[in-house]
C-alpha cells in the first residue's frame, strides 16, 4: 500500500514536471510569436558579406543608399566630432549597426566592428538572421530564386519597428506618435511616406527611395516649415514660424538639431544690426539652465532686444494652437522649445524709430554650434517698417 502511494506521488511529480516544462515552452513560443516576425527559414547560409555585393543586382538602390546619410552614419565628420571619434561607444549601435532583426523589431541594434564606411548598411534593415535571408517588399521576380541573398517578401520591411530603434533614441518616434499622422485612417502617414517616397525604377517598377531625405536635405527641410513676415502697422511687424510640413517636431531630435530665427535690422543711416531672436531645440538632459517660457499653447513671452545705436525693440511671442494636430503632451525636462507638428510661433515685433527695415532668416542647424554658412537657410523675408 505504502509503495503504491509513493508510486502515485512519483507519477504526480513527473506530471507536474512535464507540465512545467511544456508551459515554459508554450510561454516562450507565445512571446516569440508576439514580438518576432515569422520568416521562411533557409537551410543554406546566405553568401553575402557586405553591402557592396548588393550592387550587382540592385545598382539603382545601392547608388541611392551610397549617397544617403545612412551610409555616412559612421563617417559623417559632425558625428565623429560629437562622439569624439566614437570613443563614446554608446553611439556606435546606431551608427554602425548590426541587423535590427537580430535584436528584434523596436529593439536597439548592437554594434558591429567591421565595414565602418558602410554606416547603416543594407543588412541593418533587410537581413533576417534567423531566416538566413534578405527581406524586401516584393514582389519577387524569377531571378530571385537563385539570388545569393535568398530573398523573401515580408511586410516587416515597412515596419516602423525598423526605424524606431535608432531614431527614437532621440525621441523622433515619440513626437510622431502624438500627431494626427499617427492616427489610423485616411490621414495616416508614417516615416516611409516622407523619408522613403515612392519612386519609379527602371522597367517601370515602383520602389521606395533609399536616399532618406531628412535633416541634410534642403528641399524636405524647407517644406517642413512655413514662414511669414509682414508689416501690420507703422513700425510693427508680424512674423509667423509654423511647423506645417513635418510629422514630428520642428526641428526633431532631442539634443542635436536646432532651428534659429534670426533678425537683422537696418537703421536710417543704412547700418545693419543682427540679433538672434529665437531658437527652437530640445536640449539634452544636462542643460538644465534652458527654460521654455512658452510651455503651453496660448502662452506668451515678452522681451526686449538691445540693438545698440538703433535703440531697442520689443518682442511679443505667442504659442499658437495647432491646426489639424492634437496637442503634444510631453515636455521633457530640461524643456523643449521645438515647435510641435501643426503649431506656430507668432511674433509681434515693435521696432524703434531708428529702424527702417528688417530681415528675418530661418536657419536649420544639424547641431547647435553649426555656423550660418554651413546651416540650411530655410526661409527668409524682409519688410519695410515704415
Amino acid at each position: 500500500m505504502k509503495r503504491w502511494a509513493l508510486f502515485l506521488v512519483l507519477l504526480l511529480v513527473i506530471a507536474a514536471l512535464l507540465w512545467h516544462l511544456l508551459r515554459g515552452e508554450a510561454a516562450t513560443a507565445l512571446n516569440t510569436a508576439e514580438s518576432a516576425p515569422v520568416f521562411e527559414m533557409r537551410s543554406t547560409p546566405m553568401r553575402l558579406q557586405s553591402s557592396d555585393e548588393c550592387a550587382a543586382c540592385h545598382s539603382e538602390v545601392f547608388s541611392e543608399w551610397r549617397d544617403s546619410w545612412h551610409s555616412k552614419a559612421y563617417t559623417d565628420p559632425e558625428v565623429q566630432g560629437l562622439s569624439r571619434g566614437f570613443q563614446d561607444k554608446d553611439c556606435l549601435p546606431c551608427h554602425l549597426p548590426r541587423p535590427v532583426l537580430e535584436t528584434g523589431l523596436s529593439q536597439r541594434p548592437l554594434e558591429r566592428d567591421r565595414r565602418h564606411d558602410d554606416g547603416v548598411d543594407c543588412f541593418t534593415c533587410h537581413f533576417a538572421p534567423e531566416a538566413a535571408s534578405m527581406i524586401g517588399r516584393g514582389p519577387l521576380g524569377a531571378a530571385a530564386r537563385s539570388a545569393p541573398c535568398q530573398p523573401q517578401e515580408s511586410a516587416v520591411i515597412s515596419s516602423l519597428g525598423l526605424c524606431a530603434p535608432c531614431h527614437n533614441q532621440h525621441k523622433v518616434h515619440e513626437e510622431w506618435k502624438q500627431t494626427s499622422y499617427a492616427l489610423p485612417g485616411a490621414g495616416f502617414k508614417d516615416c516611409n511616406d516622407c523619408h522613403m517616397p515612392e519612386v519609379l525604377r527602371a522597367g517601370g517598377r515602383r520602389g521606395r527611395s533609399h536616399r532618406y531625405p531628412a535633416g541634410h536635405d534642403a528641399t524636405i527641410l524647407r517644406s517642413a516649415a512655413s514662414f511669414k513676415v509682414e508689416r501690420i502697422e507703422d513700425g510693427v511687424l508680424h512674423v509667423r514660424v509654423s511647423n506645417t510640413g513635418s510629422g514630428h517636431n520642428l526641428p526633431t531630435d532631442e539634443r542635436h538639431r536646432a532651428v534659429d530665427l534670426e533678425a537683422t535690422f537696418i537703421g536710417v543711416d543704412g547700418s545693419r544690426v543682427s540679433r538672434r531672436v529665437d531658437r527652437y531645440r530640445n536640449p539634452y538632459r544636462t542643460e538644465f539652465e534652458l527654460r521654455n517660457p512658452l510651455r503651453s499653447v496660448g502662452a506668451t513671452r515678452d522681451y526686449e532686444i538691445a540693438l545698440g545705436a538703433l535703440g531697442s525693440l520689443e518682442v511679443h511671442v505667442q504659442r499658437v494652437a495647432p491646426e489639424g494636430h492634437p496637442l503634444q503632451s510631453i515636455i521633457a525636462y530640461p524643456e523643449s522649445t521645438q515647435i510641435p507638428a501643426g503649431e506656430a510661433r507668432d511674433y509681434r515685433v515693435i521696432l524703434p524709430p531708428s529702424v527702417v527695415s528688417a530681415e528675418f532668416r530661418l536657419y536649420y542647424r544639424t547641431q547647435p554650434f553649426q555656423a550660418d554658412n554651413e546651416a540650411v537657410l530655410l526661409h527668409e523675408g524682409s519688410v519695410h517698417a515704415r
Partner: protein
Amino acid sequence: MRVEQLCFVCLLLLLACSDGVAPPAPAPAVVTDALVAELEGRSPDERIQRILQVAEQREAGHTTALLHLMKDRSQVAFHVVADAAAPFGLKAIELTATGADLRSMERVAAIAVLQRLQVREALPDLLLALDDRHPVVVNHAAAALLALGCRAGLPYLLAHAEGRNLTTGEFMASPAFAGESADVLLRACTAEDAGYNADAGFTHKQEAAARWRVLVEQRVASGRPFVGEGRLVQQGDDAATDRRINFFVDVVGQMQFLYHEQARRMLTRLGVAALPSVRDGIERGRKSGNATLLAGLAQVLGGIAHANSEVLLVALVREKHPTVASRAASALAQLGTPGAVAALKDALETPAVRLAALEALGQAGVAGAAVLRTWNSDDAEALKVRTLALFEASAGHEAAAPALAMLLSDSLADRNRALAVVQRTLKTDGGYQSTADAAARTAAVELLKSRLP
C-alpha cells in the same frame, strides 16, 4: 534507486526548474501617491517641511513618492513605476516635468528621509543620485548610501571637500556648499574633525580636505565601520530591494540608450552586491535571446573587480553573438587578471571576437604583450589591431612607428582605432583629430612622436 529516493530527486528537479521564488507581488500605486498630490500648490519651503515630516513622524507608505521626489528634475532619465504585468512588477517611464523650479533641496529632503527611515529599496536610486548636478544632493546620497552599507559615495564626499567634481576632476565654479556639506557629513560618519573651515581660504580648505582623505583611508584600512554604517543588502535580505535591483538589470536590456547607460552605471557602483542579480540577468538574457542585455551586463562586469565577474565574463566571451563576445572581451581587459588574459588568448581563435580580444590584450599590459608578440594571422584587419595592441601593451615601447603611421591611414575607422590606443598609451592626443585634413594630422603625429618613451 528506491521509489522514495526517486520522488525526492524529482522534487529537487522540479524546484530547480521553477523560478525559485514566487512571482513578485505587484508594487503599490505610484507617482500619483498621496504625498505627491499633497505637495501640489505648496511653496518650496512648505514642500520641504512636509517631506521632512515623513521621517519625523515615521509615516509609512510613501516610499514610491520619495523615490520620485529624490529624482524630480534631476539628470535621471526614468522613473520606476508599478506594473503588475511586467517582470518584477515594475516598469520604467520617462522622467518629465513642466515646472520652472529646480527642486534640488527637495531632492535632498527626500534622500534625508529615505536615509532616516533606512529604506533599503532606495539603494539603486541613491547610486544614480551620485550623478546629480547639485553637489549637495550628491553628498546626501553618499551619506544615505553609507547608512545602507554602501561606500560608493565616499569618493564623492572627499572630492567635494576639495571643491572638485569627481567625474571631471575639475574644480567647481562655486564649491562653497559642496565643501561645507561634505565636511558636515564626513564628520557625522567618522565622528572625527579634519579642521575644515568653510570660511577659510583655498589653501586651508585643500589641507583640510587632504586630512579628510587620510582619515577616511585609515578608517577603511582599519576595518572599522563608519558611524551609522549599515550592512550592505545581500540578495535574499529584502524582496523589494532584490526586485528593484533585478529590474535595473533588465533595464540594461531595454531600448533607450540613456536608460541603459544609467542602469549600467548603477550596477557597477553597487559592485559585488550586484553580482547575483547580474548573474540571474545573464541567465534571463540567454533564455530570451536578449543580446542587448547580455552585451550590457558584460560591460557592467568589467567594472566589478571580483573573481565571479571573471567567471561570468569567460562564459560571455564564448557567446555566439559577436557583439556580446566583443563586449565581454573588453570587460575582461578591465579586470586584467591572469584568467582574463587566458580567456582572451583563447578568444583569438574565434574570428567574430578576434578584434575585440586583440584590443583587450593590448590593455592587459605585460601579460597581454607576451601573447601578442607571438600571435599571427592572415586576417589583415586583425594584424592592424594587433599592432596597436602591442603598442599599448608595451606602453609605447614596441610597434610605435606602425601604430603612429595608422593615424595617417586613409581609413577613418583605422585612424579612430589608433587614436583611442595612442591616447590611452601616451596620455595625450597631441591635438590630433581623426577628421582633420592630412597636414594637420601629420603635424599632430610629429608632436606625438616626441612623446614616445
